[in-house]
């Protein structure tokens, strides 16, 4: 199976990268964009989907500071 793992800074944690992107947008005329958060996208292929959660907890995300979401894509 193929999967996509989305990793984001946890809600409430300051994301300076998102803030920097948000501040840059008005200069380009995008005035109505708010709450930009920048995360990571990991694509992978696995024989056993059962391991994915464990793998996210142990390596792909740091659960103290990040949330993750696993999407199976076929």
């Amino acid at each position, binding site marked *: 199976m193929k999967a996509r793992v989305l990793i984001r*800074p946890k809600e409430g*944690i*300051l994301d*300076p*990268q998102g803030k*920097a992107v948000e501040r840059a947008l008005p200069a380009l005329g995008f005035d109505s964009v708010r709450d930009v958060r920048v995360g*990571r996208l990991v694509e992978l292929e696995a024989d056993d989907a059962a391991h994915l959660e464990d793998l996210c907890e142990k*390596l*792909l995300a*740091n659960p*103290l*500071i990040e949330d993750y979401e696993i999407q199976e894509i076929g």
Partner: protein
Amino acid sequence: MFGVLQFPGSCDERDALAACERVSEARMIWHEETSLDGIDAIVVPGGFSYGDYLRAGAIARFAPAMEAVREFAEAGGPVLGICNGFQVLCEAGLLPGALLPNDGLRFLCRQVDLEVVSTDSAFTRGLEEGERLSVPVKHMTGRYFAPPGMLDELEARGQVVLRYGPGQNPNGSARDIAGVSNEAGNVMGLMPHPEHAVDPLTGSDDGLKLFAAAAKAAVAA
């Protein structure tokens, strides 16, 4: 004998080794070593271990030598994580909390004053509470974070070892925290670089005090 862990991508291991050699014998430990026989104290140095891919310290915690470091730490041996080493020890679960990108997003390199908060750790024993240490910081991912409840516990248990001096928090760290220890006090991590402050020639030798304290702790153990 002090051991300084060396990962691919470490860059402060030589300064760390030189700092250790001022207070003890010392040798480098390559990340593939699995035996730490004869080692009395360990320094996990700064740098960009394994390229800091994914998150700073995330890959390094799986290095073969880290299993031996974990056993050493659990047996009460003194372990000091500096900068990237701090990140590695947090990722490995040997220290509480995590390090996030600086709130200003910039790489910082400057001298800061640190305030000794706790003298219960293996690296601050013998120092005085409230004592100031002048030590440089140089990092991009140094914003100490732990959930508020955990911060309260750390403070109550004396695990906050060092804070940035008033008005000097360079990176947005929670409650101005610059260094923390585990509950037992034998494992400590800090973002500033005491190994770069061991000779008056470079402006301060305050950093040497942490190594000297560890040398005493190692002899006592």
